[in-house]
């Protein structure tokens, strides 16, 4: 068959059809897998090795300490604080950010005049870099009411004292969370809007005819039919919270007094400020395990997320 075609077209295939196919598969997959193994899998395996050493990055790692690094991490109260803060960010994301995005998506709905305009504006912060978002909000949070807009606004109310926002150990994390929400609510809204598009209008019309009011419609039709999108958003939101680094690093570097420390800022400090590379590797491995356990747990318990591309 192959040779017949070849004779007709006048060129002899150097390889049989099957060999040609296999060659295509090999060549096409090669770049992806090369990068994947060299730049993702290999470094991680190597870091597992380094995590058993006390190593400052000069020369080969020789000072084998076994599991000491891990013991140290698990004992460190600052790491506990980082885990607690991570959980707090997750809780706020799921409890505040996602419901807000969902409410906005339902409000914009599918036929509100100006829908495209609102979608465009709400998604805009997503494309602004985290560095810029952080600097913009640092100006707004300025504790001096003659400089920071937020304190200027709240002190307009008689009897309200200016608040120390980012200097306050209790408020610093919620402050960072507000920036996260500002930047990412549009992403979730966008996903919810896409989910809304896929709900057949007949279902809603039928419910209307049966006498459902708007609240009942949302509660018993829209939200259940968005279940998959909601799960996907929860997954992205939790994974995003676990990875939060830039906002924390630019705005507070984990301060004041570790009040806004998260796992990634903790790892960054030990790895790239103090250069305890063995210890930093151990932190990275702990973080990887947490993220792995979460992802596998999600896939096992909930389902395969259909949307996984967000960074």
């Amino acid at each position, binding site marked *: 068959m192959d040779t017949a*075609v070849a004779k007709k077209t006048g060129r002899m295939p150097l390889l049989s*059809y099957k060999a040609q*196919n296999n060659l295509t*598969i090999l*060549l*096409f*997959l090669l770049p*992806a*897998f090369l*990068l*994947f193994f*060299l730049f*993702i899998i290999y*470094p*991680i395996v*190597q*870091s597992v090795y380094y995590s058993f050493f006390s190593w400052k990055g000069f020369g080969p790692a020789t000072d084998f300490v076994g599991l000491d690094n891990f013991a140290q991490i698990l004992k460190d109260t600052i790491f506990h604080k980082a885990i607690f803060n991570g959980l707090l960010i997750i809780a706020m994301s799921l409890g505040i950010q996602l419901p807000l995005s969902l409410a*906005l998506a339902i*409000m914009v709905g599918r036929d509100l005049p100006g829908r495209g305009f609102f979608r465009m*504006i709400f998604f*805009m912060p997503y*494309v*602004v*870099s*985290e*560095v*810029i978002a952080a*600097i*913009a909000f640092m*100006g707004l949070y300025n504790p001096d009411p003659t*400089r920071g*807009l937020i304190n200027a606004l709240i002190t307009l109310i008689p009897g309200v004292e200016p608040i120390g926002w980012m200097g306050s150990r209790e408020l610093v994390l919620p402050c960072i969370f507000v920036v996260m929400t*500002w930047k990412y609510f549009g992403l979730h809204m*966008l*996903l919810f*809007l*896409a*989910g809304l*598009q*896929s709900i057949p209008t007949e279902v809603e019309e039928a419910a209307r005819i049966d006498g459902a009011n*708007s609240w009942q419609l949302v509660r018993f039709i829209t939200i259940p039919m968005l279940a998959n999108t909601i799960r996907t958003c929860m997954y992205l939101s939790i994974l995003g919270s*676990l*990875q*939060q680094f*830039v906002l924390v690093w630019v705005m507070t570097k984990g301060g004041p007094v570790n009040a806004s420390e998260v796992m990634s800022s903790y*790892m*960054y400090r030990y790895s*790239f400020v103090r250069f305890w*590379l063995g210890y930093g*590797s151990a*932190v*990275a491995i702990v*973080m990887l395990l947490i993220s792995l356990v979460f*992802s596998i747990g999600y896939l096992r318990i909930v389902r395969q997320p*259909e*949307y*996984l*591309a*967000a*960074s």
Partner: protein
Amino acid sequence: MTTATVATPRRNWKRFIPRIIQYVFLTLIVIVVFVPIIMLVFSGLKTRGEAYTFPFVPPIPPRWDNMKLILTTPNFWTMLRNSLLVLAGTTVSVVLICSLAAFVFARMRFRSKDLLFNILTLGLMFPITIAILPVFLLVRQLKLPDTLLAIIIVQTAFSLSGNIMILRGFFLSIPMELEDASYIDGCNSFDFFWRILMPISRPALAAVAALVMIASWNDLLVPLVVINKEALWTLPLGTMQFQGQYGFDISLVNAFVTLSALPTLIFYFFAERQIVTGMTAGAVKG
């Protein structure tokens, strides 16, 4: 007839109340979205003194001195160039490498295909924020620090899994008949990929490219860890350092930040459709 004309406007008016509340609420959110950006721009268009004494009023008349100063010193342009080089390198390699792999996973049959695909999706569980130290150690071993190439390679490697999944989904949705027809016409699988699949997949490729561009352009972590030389700073890295260095001069910092946000916002208003398509790819099923 008369009753109808009286009744209809009243019912309409009542129906509009929720709409009005909706618009008021949405407008409020629009304001919240804009305030941080507008404050940046305002402050960037004031003199240092004005920015301290009248921080909240619009810059009338606008002072362009800060912007001029930044645009006439080479630093900003060097950073812009570095960011553009990284963006171009990463986008081209991600689109190319991912479409090659996605094509194989979507269109070819071979043993252990599912296994290989699952291995690749593992990458989603190792995000760059978490793997940054391991990756830095490798980059150092390969003697790549202080090169833009290192940023490009690392960004590409960590964008593979997600984008291969998106493109595979898209390639799967292209009708099989097209492929059969091309084989009957004497194409081999490479011809089909290059001459048929890639051209008709342009919208999906554009969507993936737009997303990769945004991620690459905004990335701080990889340049922060990999680059020391000031001549190789990218815009986010430079912006952060500039803020640290000139934090005392708010209007100058904000002018810099405004200028570095400008390209992204312009890009967004032109490519919004591609970005939104890319972002929702796959989610529609959910």
